[in-house]
């Protein structure tokens, strides 16, 4: 018997089995995703249920800890009838505006200075110790000073967001600029790149992955800066809602503002992740999954 006749059917069976197996694998992956999602929802519902139950049974004090149903009522009341300071969306937008503006300014300043100090040894040597000292200070205590200086408007909140955002971004950009592959720099210089071209086309692209890691953390910082600033004194914003609720012993109000903030942060994080994916198309897929 010629060998081909034996071979052919085996090959067919094999490829059939392979198709089966890959379908099987796809199904298993789908099942796993469902399971993870289901477990997540179950955990949330369970915790909220426990909270509600314990508060209703007065095992924990609902005056201090409130309960999910009251928080929900508070949120829907704010959404439908507006807050004491005006419509809810206006408060959200105000906080988001301050945080975003502070974040953008802080990030730009951090990136520019980080790259500059990473590239220019002299600057790094002169400014290095001062930056370390400033970083060691608890910068959030500057918020009252900004309030005195810039008043009750958004400017004081933006300023406190900036000082919180600047440092993590700066340190990451600095590190990123320092850790550029020396081969790559040597190669681009041989290929004819000027100092400026090396900075713009080699150092900055290689530092972007460092910078992006700090962007995630720093947006949270920007929100903190804006909220604390509003809490200390403002005419609008979620931080003011928190402090107003505190003033009327309304724990549900504090929690409700927190939930809204969490949602805002989650959306921002999602947008950032989307942007990152677009920007890092050149990276091998496995390394970006592993982060």
């Amino acid at each position, binding site marked *: 018997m010629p060998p081909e006749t034996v071979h052919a059917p085996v090959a067919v069976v094999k490829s059939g089995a392979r198709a089966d197996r890959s379908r099987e694998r796809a199904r298993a992956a789908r099942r796993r995703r469902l399971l993870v999602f289901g477990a997540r929802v179950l955990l949330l519902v369970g915790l909220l249920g426990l909270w509600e139950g314990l508060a209703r049974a007065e095992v924990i004090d609902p005056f201090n800890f409130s309960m999910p149903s009251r928080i929900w009522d508070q949120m829907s009341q704010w959404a439908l009838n507006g807050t004491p300071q005006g419509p809810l969306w206006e408060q959200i937008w105000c906080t988001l505006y301050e945080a975003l503006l502070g974040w953008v300014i802080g990030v730009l300043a951090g990136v520019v200075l980080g790259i500059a100090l990473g590239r220019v040894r002299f600057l790094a040597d002169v400014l290095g110790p001062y930056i370390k000292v400033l970083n060691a200070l608890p910068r959030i205590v500057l918020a009252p000073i900004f309030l005195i200086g810039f008043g009750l408007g958004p400017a004081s909140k933006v300023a406190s967001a900036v000082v919180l955002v600047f440092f993590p971004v700066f340190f990451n950009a600095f590190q990123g600029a320092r850790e550029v592959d020396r081969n790559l720099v040597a*190669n681009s210089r041989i290929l*004819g790149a000027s100092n400026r071209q090396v900075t713009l086309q080699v150092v900055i692209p290689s530092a972007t992955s460092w910078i992006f890691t700090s962007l995630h953390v720093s947006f949270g910082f920007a929100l903190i800066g804006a909220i604390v600033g509003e809490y200390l004194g403002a005419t609008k914003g979620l931080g003011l809602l928190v402090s107003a609720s505190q003033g009327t012993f309304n724990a549900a109000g504090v929690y409700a503002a927190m939930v809204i903030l969490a949602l805002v942060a989650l959306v921002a994080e999602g947008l950032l992740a989307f942007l990152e994916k677009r920007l890092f198309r050149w990276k091998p897929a496995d390394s970006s999954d592993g982060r």
Partner: protein
Amino acid sequence: MNSHLSPAIELRGTSKTFRTPSGGLHTAVRDLDLVVGRGEFVAVVGPTGCGKSTTLTLISGLEEPTRGEVLVDGEPVRGIGDTVGFVFQQDAVFPWRTVLSNVMAGPRFRGVPKAEARQRAREWLARVGLAAFEDRYPHQLSGGQRKRVALAATFVNDPGILLMDEPFSALDVQTRALMSDELLELWSGTGASVVFVTHDLEESIALADKVVVMTAGPATVKEVFEIDLPRPRRVESVRLEPRFIEIYREIWSSLGEEVRITRERGAADAA
């Protein structure tokens, strides 16, 4: 070769001393005399870590000599010249640029208009057989393909002097032979003078007109051998010729001694 013109590269009594992180002084190259004629392919062999790569960085202008002179086209080297091409041992392609954009980088850095740079880059990509891969990113290529990108990115600048620092040492044996053939083919049209650093004696004989044997570090020239094998050469077949084996034996008797010295030193350091 044009005898009335100065040689492409000339090193006269060149030494290079580095300061080590611990504060000591390390002499990588000492009293180096080397002449590379125009259009000549010179291979530099020596024990690992002897200072061969330093020689290249001196010629390229990336580093300055501590003593002595480095002349390119009869002129002392000041900074990085624009006639120099350098192929590094490690991948030095830009990971965030596509293959085409990588090859365009050199001309673009030098101010060539975009359209022209693109056209030149496409030509060289076709010559290294990567025309179909121009939209890929480096991480999507194999090691040999990335090396081809590096070659195209170097040749597209039309270098008069080509410095290569163990460019194929990270590749597997088959790919290495293939790339050596390709290099000879790419080089043959350009008239560039080549300094090719390697620790692989077979590779150096197969490629070069002249093999320079370096001493154990600090490196200086020990002996120079002319390779009289006819061109064009095929790397895989030339190494089976009796003359090749004869030359190999001759050079190894010189190089082997230096390798032994380096090894004994390493053993002494470890002890």
